[in-house]
Every structure is written in structure tokens, then in C-alpha cells.
């Protein structure tokens, strides 16, 4: 009986020691894993910072305006292009308000389905005060020139909006000389390098 107890106790001790070793080992592993994860989180959050900075740089209004002036022919939205409210839509030819129209079964129950107008709405130029010809170059002149090349001048004529944009020369000089992309790239590379 006593021997049995001793053997039982000894085997418990061996089991406990083995178990403790295993637990300790796995805890160490997990701790290392945790440290790696924490490092990963730190690296990632640093990368997020860099990406946020890069996003803010690339999406800065100045950058967007430069791209817009270079590639598009967009101008500030004039008040006559803004619909103040749905009710300011005029009556249909049939004499019913669009929003009150009976649901069209062909397009489901979407009563707000707005058939797209076939012709582009034409906003005639507002009467402008008599002004002498401006001696400063027109800001959107360059953009218009490109449009003409793309045979889109007709669209501009139809729209007949007020014409204003910085010239490409103005845009070139305004861009700050700091090599921002290089700086951000530098930080990006560094985070990559640290892993």
C-alpha cells in the first residue's frame, strides 16, 4: 500500500514536472508569438501612418486641381447647375410632378426612377456685366485647347459655363519644390526594411 502510494506520488511528480515544462514551453512560445504580433502591429500602424500621409499628399486639393486642370475640363459648379430641391423640378409635359408619378411596372416599384434626359440640359450664359477684355490669360484656356484637340469643344459650347482655371504655367510654378514622394517612399521603404 505504502509503496503504491509512493509510486503514485512519484508518478504524479514526474507528470507534474513534465506538464509544467510543457506549459512553460508553450507559454514561452506564445509570448514570443505575442511579441512578434505586437511588433507587427507597431510596424503596421507605422505603415498606416505613412500611407495616411501619402494619401493626404496625393489627395490634397492642390494635387487634385493639378490633375483636373491637366486632364479634365471641369469648372467650379455654378449655382444654375445645382438643383435646390426635388420640388424645383418643373412639371412634366403631362402635368404631373415626377415624384408623384404612378409606379412604372417595367422598372419595378421604384417611383423615384428618373428617366435620363436624352438631351443634355442647356444652361444659357447669364447676362454678364460689360467688362473690358481681361489681359491676364484665361485660367481654363489651356484645358479648353486640349478639349478642342479631343473634339469635345462642342460639349463645352453646349454647356456654356463660365470659363476659369489656372494656366499650366501657373500650375507648374505653384507646385512646391519639395520632393514629397521621395520622402514618403523613404519612410515606406524603411518600414519594409525593418521586417
Amino acid at each position, binding site marked *: 500500500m505504502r509503496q503504491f502510494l509512493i509510486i503514485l506520488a512519484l508518478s504524479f511528480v514526474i507528470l507534474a514536472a513534465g506538464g509544467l515544462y510543457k506549459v512553460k514551453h508553450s507559454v514561452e512560445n506564445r509570448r514570443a508569438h505575442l511579441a512578434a504580433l505586437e511588433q507587427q502591429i507597431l510596424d503596421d500602424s*507605422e505603415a498606416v501612418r505613412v500611407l495616411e500621409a501619402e494619401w493626404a499628399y496625393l489627395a490634397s486639393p492642390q494635387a487634385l486641381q493639378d490633375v483636373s486642370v491637366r486632364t479634365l475640363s471641369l469648372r467650379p459648379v455654378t449655382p444654375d447647375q445645382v438643383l435646390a430641391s426635388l420640388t424645383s423640378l418643373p412639371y412634366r409635359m403631362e402635368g404631373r410632378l415626377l415624384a408623384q408619378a404612378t409606379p412604372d411596372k417595367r422598372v419595378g416599384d421604384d417611383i423615384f426612377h428618373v428617366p435620363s434626359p436624352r438631351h443634355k440640359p442647356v444652361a444659357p450664359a447669364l447676362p454678364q456685366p460689360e467688362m473690358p477684355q481681361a489681359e491676364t490669360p484665361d485660367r481654363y484656356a489651356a484645358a479648353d485647347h486640349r478639349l478642342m484637340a479631343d473634339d469635345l469643344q462642342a460639349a463645352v459650347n453646349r454647356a456654356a459655363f463660365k470659363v476659369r482655371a489656372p494656366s499650366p504655367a501657373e500650375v507648374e510654378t505653384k507646385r*512646391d519644390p519639395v520632393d514629397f514622394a521621395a520622402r514618403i517612399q523613404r519612410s515606406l521603404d524603411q518600414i519594409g526594411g525593418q521586417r
Partner: protein
Amino acid sequence: MSLRVSLDGARATAIEKARQRLVVVAVMFGVVFSVMALRIVDLGLFQAVSETRYAAQSFLTPTALRADIVDRHGVVLATNLKTASLYADPMRILEPEQVAAKLSRLFPDLVEAQLLQKLQGNGRFVWLKRKLTPKQMWQVNALGLPGLAFQEEEERIYPQGRLAAHVLGFTDPDGRGLAGVEHYFDARLSDMDKVDEPLALSVDVRVQHALMDEVQRSVDRFSAIGGAGLVMDVRSGELLAMASVPDFDPNEPAASPEQAFFNRASQGVYELGSTFKAFTLAMALEAGTATIASHYDASEPIKVSRFTIRDDHPQNRVLSLPEIFVHSSNIGAAKMAMEVGTEAQQDFLSRLGLLRPASLELAEVGHPLVPDRWRDIATMTIAYGHGIAVSPVQLASGLSAMVNGGDLHPATLLVKSADQKAKGRSVISEKTSATLRTLMRLVVQKGTAQQADVPGYRVGGKTGTAEKAVGGGYARKALLSSFAGIFPMDDPRYLVFVMIDEPQGIKSTWNYAGGGWTAAPTVADVILRIAPLLGVRPHEEDNGPFQQAAFVIEDSRKKP
């Protein structure tokens, strides 16, 4: 197989006693140990800290040493990024000549002789090159030279470049704020407990860019020496944009000349001219010395000692109160102010916060210049904005109070909470404010600022054209042209102020350089760009019948 020994007598009693004691002690130990064992089982199995809780407890060092600055919509205006700098320990450099040669080949901008001098020095630390790119860092490591090491540093980056440079300010290489918000909130930004919470400004980058772009364009167009602009929420005093030209790049502050750091919008104090007539009118209406039906004789210039007060747009007749405002009559405003009196004027301007510096969150806030002795002539000239110099921020706060129903909100660069917004100090009555709204709209419809009109947005405002004080007198040709526009005038939301410093008239303005010709069209351009961004709806009735026709929808599926 146990051995039993029995003893007799006193000995037996003693041993029995000892055994009982041992049993007591053993039981006590047993109880304590079993409690401990149970507690261990309890802790291990039932009280285990869940992994998520443990993860939340784990300590993560913050990634930056300085909090970010963001705009009112969370767009990053200033942030910290990591970078590495190269230093050397001259004691551990084995062959300084060789090291200097190799490094100067790697960095052409480092002079070999200077490097050698540094490397042969006696110190234990010398900077070789700050802020390396990761590629350069790798190249230095690839040289495999002992005694060279990197120090990880942080660099303050302003991704928006020049945008809002005067609001943000800049930091020195060690990350201490030297100007603007960076300086004013230096303690808050470098507080390690709050480093993860960005500082949100009331600035809106889109509005800021539109303002910046237009002010810069006007300054270039009129060959002016500078300009300033403000966009303020008239209901709360929040500044959505603040621009000053010339500006600088906070990423490279050293590259800009000294005068570029001057913030004309908050630091500069100017005699802003006729814009002050709005205050004079409000004061007279509040004091009851004038009503909207009052008339003042503006046919003769006023002569006071050696001064003569003339009108810039002389009508040479008796003017009604709206006419005085619309034609910007100095004579009328001066007479109106004299009726109210010097003391009342002082008191009124003081209540509007025009006699002490604005309470703006910037280090660069200018002190207004007021007359030492407030004589009659001062009362008269201040009535039309001469003889008192205030900063554009002060003027904007004052004018906001004139149109928003009479509540003065101090100008701020931080986003206000709803109950902070409600807290305004009443300075004029709602009725006077309504009258001024009408008059300001009239100035744009019929008066000096017709070029500020943007159909649909109901712009109102007041031009100001001041001659700059030079020496003892005023320079006729050096003007300070400004316009404060507020829109929409039936329910004012935003104030746009533009000031052009010494504009030169050009052919398309018939060589005029006054506020109506320079600043007013700039304000119109700004409003045209920012009103859709700020969600201000144009009034459809201001559009012609053409718009109505343009929106008529043709149903393509219904064939007649």
C-alpha cells in the same frame, strides 16, 4: 506491515501529547496547502484571464512622439514619420581616411576633408548625415565599417504642403513647435498620453485651398505685395480657412524669406476702411440717434482743424442712411458717429472685441492700434475705418455679430461643440442685425460691390478701401483693398473676407484698385467654389426661367 510500539506511564502520555500536536500542525498545514491547491486550480481553470482581455492589457508603445493635426473632416495636416540619421563614434573608427573616402563616395554632398576632420575628432559622438533614405541606410550598412551607427528619428511631415501653412506653423528638427498651432498647442501635441488623439482644427482643407488659390491669384493679378483671406462660420466663429500671401512651406521653413512667416490674417493690424461703416451704422441704430429713414447732408466735405473728410464716391447731396452705406459716404458716417458720441463709440467697439487682441489659438495675434486720445477727429475717422487698426480676424468676428442676429462668437481654430456654439454674447439687437443684412445685400446689388454677386447665393457685404498710413500722412496710391462678403444674406452662414495689400489697377479694372474692383470679385470666386462644398443651396428664384426650362424632363419611353 506496520510495527506497533506501545509504551507505558508518563512517557507514553508525553509521546501521545506530542503526536496530537503534530497531528494538529499537520492538519493546519494540510488545510492551508489544500486551500492553495484549490486556489491554483480555481485561478488556472475558472478565473483565467481571457485572451482578449490579456491582449488589451498588453502594452504597446505609441508610434509617434507628437500627435497628428487633422482638419475638421479628419484629413491629415501634420504627422510624424520615422527616419534614420547616421552618426559615428570616432573612438571606434579604425581607418578614418578610408571611411571618409567611402562615405564621400556614397554621399556626394559630404565633403571628404570635413568628414575626415569629424572622424578624427576626440568625441564619442558626431553627426554625419541627418535623415537618410532606407536605400542609403542599406548602402552604409553594406560598407561594413565599425564605428558607424544609426539613430532613429522622427520627422514632422505636412502632406498638404503650403496649404494652411500660417495656421499650422512648423517645428524645429527636434519636434518643438515654433509657430502657429504647433507652437500654441505644443504641450498638448507632445503630451504622450494624448499622442494617439489627433488635434482637430476647424479648418476645412477644401475651403482652405479654394481661398488660398483665389487670394494668390488676385495678388498675382494685381501685382500686390500680399494678401489675406478668411472664411468664418458666422454662427459659431469657427474659422474654416485662413490664408496669408506670401506663404511658406512648413516642410522646409528655412527655404522661405522672413516676411513669408508673417500672418496677415491674424498678426497684421490694418486700417481696414469703409468696412467699419457697418459698425457705425449698427451703433447709431442701436443708440437710437438714427433710423433707417434718417438723412445726412454729404454735399460738403467736413473740415476739422487740418483734416478734411471727403467721399471717395461723392454724391454731393443729402443722403439717406442706406445711401450712405451703399455709396460708402465717409461724411455721412462721420456725422452719424458724432451724433452717437465718442464714449458710446469706444464702448461699442470694445464690446465687439475690436480694442483688444483676438482670442485666437495662435501665437501670432496682433494687438489692435487705437488712438491714445480719442478726440472728435478720431471718432469721425474711426467711423469709416481710419485711425484704428485691427486684424482681419477681429473684423470678421465683429461683422459676423452684425449679421447673425447680434451674437458675438470669439474666433476659433478648433471645432466647437453644439452647446459651445450656442454661447454667444449679444452685442446688437436682432432688429438692427436684420437691417444690416438688408443694407449689406444692397451694397452688392446696387453699390460698390456689385462684382461680388454670385447669382443664387445672395451675397452681401461691405467693401473697404483704405489708404495706407505712410509716415505722418496717407499714401494715395498705396491702398489696402478688402471686401467682407457674407452669404446667403437671408440666413447668413459664412463670411468670406479677402484683403489685397497694395494692388495695382490693371486695364480690365480701368486702373481702379479699390475693394470693389479687386477683393470683391475674388470673394465672388471663392464663394462660387466653396458654397457647393459647404452645402449652401442656391435659391432657385434667383435663377432665370432658362433654368426651369433646362430641367424639363422628357420621358423617352412615352411616344406620343
